[in-house]
């Protein structure tokens, strides 16, 4: 039946587990969707970043980001169904970023290159240009200067000639005869020759007299000869000097016409030695004006110097001729005209030399454009029908000059700048680029323009060539840099992209984890809700079963069945509580209490409780707590007990024979001494602990009185496979799934244990053990109250001269006890079974044994004699030593009776020890009975009792021995650790016997009974924590009886019920009234407060307060009531009624000052027990 129930409940839980499973899978799917959306967002951010970076790239970035966006949105559509392509997103955006950076780099480098190139070029060019300009200017300047010089020298010579002529003519002007005249001409010739020979550059020098006589020197540049040309003197007559009339120059008598007309004039030429001027050859007759231009009067019409460019037959270069008149003494008339011609050939020569180096051309033109001199060797004159004439520059045979002139003409269209200065760097002449510069030389009579063409190649050619080379080098360098940069970027961003990928993965993992946690929380919530929902009906079922059990009309069979059902229901409820616990812990709603409690007592109680189960399975349950364990610690006793209850029950489940030991010892934070008693390897746990300590050293330093308590739970069961040592602590994990069938359980126990241990700052693990079985080690960090001295309870047995005989069935527990006693210097004898015991006893009591049998009074005498000196024998006998199956046990008791007076017997009772035996024992004076199992505390109690008793004996002699029939059961299953099934037992047995106990005994054992008032407090909360299926049907019955007697428990109580819902009002009222309480109902918090204030004479014993009410809710009302109470000393208990069942609600209730907490729907039993505990506390 039980098994069936168990399975059923397990299935129910599994089913409950399934439905959240499917739900969770739904959630996970949804979360995957969310996840991908999240990724997209991250991606979009990246794309956004990329576009921000590339914004300066304008179009490119726009295209990139828009395409990226499209891409992403497309992706999103796809990924809403699947997340296969997820990892490509960051990759893609990295690509975009990478390209953007590369493009940026390219642009940067490109700009840099261009700038470098540009600046190099521009600066070189400008500097070169300025240099070139200077050069050109210089080049131009020099021929012009030469020209100028030539002109100047010509003018000077002319002028000096004129002066000399004036002087000579004045001197000889008054020539009266031919001889004188000839003399004049001779002098003139010498003078002229002197001047002429002084200037080598002069082409010719002529003097034309008024009478038409001509004297001229001429250098023929072609044949390097110098000639003297003169006209035949015979043809001329002395004529009157010219009467120059300035007002009518046209009336001048002689002019060229006259001369020209004088064809008969005979001109002679005689070659001269160019150096000496001596005649070297014969004179030859030449036609006039044949060779040179003789400047006539016509050329000086206004009497000022005149300039013009002339052309000669004998030179192929134009000639510059100047003419100046020679005035007579009073300047009234012109006596002669001096003409000087200079060949411009030397200018041309200079030009040629200058330009030769630069391969350019230079030419001079008159303002009109007639070529005067060029650097080229092309002829400047053109042979036309009328003799050689000057050519225009446009018509020059030199192409360059021609095209330059044309270009100038074309470019400026006769609108030349005022001073004819043109500086052009880029004229294309022919198929070459030239610099063209022109310069204007403004002579009064002969303005000239110089033009310089230099091929650009000659100046800038190298630069241009270099320029291209530089450009190519720069470009190739920048391309190299770009490539290298791109590679670098690629490599760098590759790392980044990997990192980004990892990061994205991490994000997604975190996200997934968060989702998983959320769903896990949801699961916890769900489980909590479920178990809560299930708990309510379960409570009802159990309650109803209790009620049913009270029914007297049940047959035994029915009764047994119902008892069974109740047990199953309790088990089911426990399971639900476990689930609720787990989910509470997981959802972080578990709050550990901080209260002082006696740890040792709790654990002993726990072992007591489990010993019943163990006894049935023939397993020893042993507790072995070291003496240095602190007696009182602070913490959540319920949770600590829960840890060990789970561990022990787990051990019991898997242990069929042997023992289960709960060991506990204590370590100070700073000292660690390995204890030989515990043979297990503690190092592992210790080191783990030390690591933890290091981590929160500060914390531990602050809290000086924190203790580390080490515990071990060891059993001799089937053990756990090492590979499962970790996983057994997971939820719903069991070492061997097949055990479920065999042993039941859900695998929640150890999970709860672990979470609780973690919560208490400890650690738990499975440790390797010698032999079969499991060894769990754990430590807890517990605070000890500072004000309690730890070592005060040191036991001092040695001085009492004790001798102990341990006759116990359990080998392990016996050896542990004997070890412990030996450590306290108490001599012991051990006995495993009856025969051994008799043997031991006979050994010990041999002398008295015989005396006892034969002679009673001797014993008393002996006692008196030995008195104080006598050792106190304590014989601890397990009831199991007696053979109960037959009647032999009475014989055995008889045997023991023999030494009853000599030694104190302490009987270890079993839970199922029948009353007959107890009564028999009592009858025989064995008053010291202890419920098994025996452990140190109980042993201490026994010894203390015996010592006290014996000291009483000393004072009161033998008086009390005969009539002390009271039996004292030292029941150390005190209060808190006892489950409610044991309460009535303790209660009834204890109280009944206490009454019988005489004064002295009561004084001795009074401690024992102190616990009873507290028992009612225990309530079902303890049932929740530690209840277990108790196979003792007696206790079940007793529970039910208790419920029954509690029917009218609330008799005489005056209760205020604050509840807004009429239905609950009615129901609760009914329940309370049935229990005999008087109830006043109010509808809300305000009324409740008012009711308290007005009804002063009849005091309410208790308030039941609904938490959710209109106008003023329960919390507010409680606060108000508590506030009002501060003035008076009274404290009215307030019990909260709420539909929520989380401990946070409980905490809230307690926080505002409520005393207890009930959940809806109201469980009658729980309500009554709560009310009773609160009201009893007060009275």
């Amino acid at each position, binding site marked *: 039946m039980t098994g069936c129930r168990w399975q059923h409940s397990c299935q129910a839980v599994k089913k409950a587990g399934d439905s959240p499973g499917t739900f969770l899978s739904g959630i996970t799917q949804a979360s995957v969707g969310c996840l991908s959306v999240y990724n997209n967002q991250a991606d979009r951010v990246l794309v956004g970043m990329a576009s921000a970076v590339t914004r300066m790239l304008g179009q490119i970035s726009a295209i990139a980001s828009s395409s990226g966006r499209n891409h992403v949105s497309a992706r999103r559509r796809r990924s809403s169904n699947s997340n296969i392509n997820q990892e490509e997103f960051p990759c893609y955006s990295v690509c975009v970023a990478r390209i953007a950076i590369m493009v940026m780099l390219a642009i940067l480098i490109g700009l840099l290159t261009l700038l470098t190139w540009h600046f190099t070029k521009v600066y070189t060019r400008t500097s070169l240009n300025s240099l070139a300009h200077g050069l050109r200017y210089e080049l131009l300047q020099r021929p012009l200067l030469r020209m100028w010089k030539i002109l100047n020298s010509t003018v000077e010579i002319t002028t000096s000639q004129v002066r000399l002529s004036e002087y000579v003519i004045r001197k000889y002007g008054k020539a009266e005869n031919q001889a004188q005249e000839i003399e004049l001409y001779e002098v003139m010739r010498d003078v002229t020759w002197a001047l002429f020979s002084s200037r080598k550059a002069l082409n010719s020098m002529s003097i034309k007299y008024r009478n038409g006589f001509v004297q001229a020197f001429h250098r023929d540049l072609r044949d390097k000869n110098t000639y003297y040309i003169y006209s035949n003197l015979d043809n001329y007559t002395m004529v009157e000097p010219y009467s120059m009339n300035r007002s009518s120059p046209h009336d001048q008598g002689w002019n060229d016409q006259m001369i020209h007309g004088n064809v008969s004039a005979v001109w002679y030429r005689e070659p001269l030695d160019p150096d000496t001027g001596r005649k070297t050859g014969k004179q030859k007759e030449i036609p006039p004006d044949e060779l040179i231009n003789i400047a006539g009067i016509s050329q000086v019409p206004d009497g000022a110097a005149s300039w013009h460019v002339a052309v000669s037959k004998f030179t192929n270069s134009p000639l510059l001729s100047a003419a100046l008149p020679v005035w007579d003494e009073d300047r009234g008339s012109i006596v002669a005209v001096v003409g000087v011609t200079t060949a411009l050939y030397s200018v041309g020569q200079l030009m040629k030399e200058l330009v030769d180096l630069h391969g350019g051309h230079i030419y001079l033109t008159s303002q009109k454009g007639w070529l005067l001199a060029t650097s080229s060797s092309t002829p400047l004159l053109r042979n036309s029908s009328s003799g050689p004439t000057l050519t225009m520059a446009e018509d020059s045979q030199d192409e360059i000059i021609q095209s330059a002139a044309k270009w100038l003409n074309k470019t400026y269209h006769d609108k030349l700048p005022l001073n004819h200065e043109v500086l052009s760097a880029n004229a294309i002449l022919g198929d070459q680029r030239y610099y063209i510069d022109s310069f204007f030389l403004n002579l009064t009579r002969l303005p000239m323009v110089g033009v310089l063409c230099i091929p650009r190649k000659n100046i800038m050619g190298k630069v241009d060539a270099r320029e291209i080379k530089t450009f190519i080098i720069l470009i190739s360098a920048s391309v190299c840099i770009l490539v290298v940069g791109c590679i670098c970027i690629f490599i760098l961003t590759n790392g980044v992209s990997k990192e980004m990928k990892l990061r994205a993965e991490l994000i997604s993992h975190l996200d997934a984890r968060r989702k998983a946690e959320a769903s896990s929380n949801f699961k916890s919530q769900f489980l909590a809700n479920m178990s809560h929902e299930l708990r309510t*009906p379960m409570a*009802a*079922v159990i309650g*109803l*079963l209790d*009620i*049913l059990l009270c029914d007297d*009309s*049940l047959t035994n069979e*029915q009764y047994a*069945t*119902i008892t069974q*059902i109740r047990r199953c229901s309790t088990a089911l409820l426990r399971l639900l509580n476990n689930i609720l616990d787990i989910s509470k812990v997981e959802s972080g709603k578990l709050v550990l209490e901080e209260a002082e409690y006696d740890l040792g007592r709790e654990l002993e109680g726990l072992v007591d409780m489990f010993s019943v189960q163990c006894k049935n399975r023939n397993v020893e349950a042993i507790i072995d707590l070291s003496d240095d364990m602190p007696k009182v610690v602070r913490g959540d006793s319920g949770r600590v007990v829960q840890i060990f209850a789970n561990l022990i029950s787990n051990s019991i489940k898997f242990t069929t024979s042997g023992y289960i030991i709960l060991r506990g010892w204590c370590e100070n934070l700073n000292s660690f001494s390995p204890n030989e008693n515990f043979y297990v390897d503690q190092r592992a746990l210790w080191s783990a602990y030390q690591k933890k300590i290091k981590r929160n050293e500060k914390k531990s330093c602050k809290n000086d009185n924190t203790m580390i308590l080490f515990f071990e739970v060891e059993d001799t069961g089937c053990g756990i496979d090492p590979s499962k040592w970790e996983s057994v602590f997971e939820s719903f994990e069991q070492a061997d799934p097949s055990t479920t069938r065999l042993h039941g359980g859900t695998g929640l126990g150890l999970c709860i244990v672990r979470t609780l241990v973690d919560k208490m700052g400890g650690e738990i693990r499975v440790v390797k053990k010698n032999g079969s079985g499991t060894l769990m080690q754990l430590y807890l960090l517990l605070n000890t109250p500072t004000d309690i001295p730890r070592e005060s309870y040191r036991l001092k047995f040695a001085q009492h001269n004790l001798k102990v005989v341990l006759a116990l069935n359990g080998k392990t527990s016996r050896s542990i006890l004997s070890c412990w006693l030996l450590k306290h210097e108490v001599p012991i004898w051990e006995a495993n079974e009856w025969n051994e015991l008799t043997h031991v006893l006979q050994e010990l009591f041999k002398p008295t044994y015989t005396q006892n049998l034969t002679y009673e009074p001797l014993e008393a005498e002996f006692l008196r004699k030995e008195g104080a000196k006598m050792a106190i024998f304590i014989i601890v006998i397990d009831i199991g030593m007696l053979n109960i199956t037959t009647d032999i046990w009475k014989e055995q008791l008889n045997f023991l009776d023999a030494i009853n007076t000599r030694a104190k017997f302490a009987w270890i009772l079993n839970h199922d020890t029948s009353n007959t035996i107890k009564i028999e024992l009592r009858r025989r004076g064995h008053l010291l009975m202890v419920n098994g199992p025996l452990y140190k505390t109980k042993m201490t109690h026994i010894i203390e009792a015996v010592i006290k008793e014996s000291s009483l004996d000393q004072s009161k002699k033998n008086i009390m021995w005969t009539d002390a029939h009271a039996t004292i059961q030292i029941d150390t299953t005190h209060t808190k650790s006892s489950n409610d099934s044991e309460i009535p037992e303790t209660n009834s047995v204890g109280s009944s016997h206490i009454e019988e106990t005489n004064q002295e005994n009561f004084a001795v054992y009074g401690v024992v009974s102190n616990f009873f008032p507290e028992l009612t407090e225990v309530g079902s909360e303890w049932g929740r924590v530690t209840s277990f299926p108790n196979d003792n049907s007696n206790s079940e019955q007793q529970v039910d009886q208790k419920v029954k007697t509690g029917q009218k428990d609330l008799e005489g109580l005056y209760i205020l019920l604050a509840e*807004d*819902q*009429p*239905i*609950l009002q*009615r*129901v609760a009222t*009914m*329940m309370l009234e*049935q229990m005999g309480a008087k109830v006043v109902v109010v509808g809300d918090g305000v009324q409740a407060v008012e009711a308290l204030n007005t009804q002063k004479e009849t005091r309410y014993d208790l308030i039941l307060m609904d938490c*959710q009410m209109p106008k003023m809710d329960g919390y507010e009302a409680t606060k108000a009531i508590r506030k009002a109470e501060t003035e008076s000393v009274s404290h009215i208990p307030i019990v909260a009624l709420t*539909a929520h069942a989380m401990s946070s609600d409980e905490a809230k209730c307690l926080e505002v000052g409520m005393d207890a907490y009930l959940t*809806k*729907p109201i469980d*009658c039993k729980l309500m009554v027990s709560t009310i009773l505990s609160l009201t009893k506390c007060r009275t």
Partner: protein
Amino acid sequence: MAAVSQLQRQFIEYTTSLYNEGYLDDQYTQLQKLQDESNPDFVVEVVSLFFEDSEKLLNNLATALQQKIVDYKQVDSHVHQFKGSSSSIGAQRVTNVCIHFRNFCEEKNLDGCLRCLQQLKHEYIQVRNKLEGLFRLEQQILQAGGSVPMMESICTSASTMSSSGKLSA
């Protein structure tokens, strides 16, 4: 007396079906247990209180959900009250719908709320009809001079069915 016993059997069957179909749960049994000689009409009284309360609450809910801006807090508190009252009389189905309803409230899901309100009305009317039928049956039994069978053990397990049968007999 045959008529009475038949009525009683009918009553038991009806009640059992109510429990089995989940209209009622053990809270109702507890209510019945509270009814004794001093309060012969306790159950009817409480249940009619429940009817009044429920109709009021349903009206409130309907108006609250018709508002333009639905005050979910208010709706939630109404539903909470409804849940409390229905669970107090053991109208299990109504309670369950209330639980759903509250979930929707938390989500602020108007559609869900409205759907739940409909469901709630439906369940409420059903449970009202059932309970009224039950009371009619009870009346009939009483009129016929019989006693209303105790219901407490019907809801438990099959093993106790026999004992309950014994009790009722």
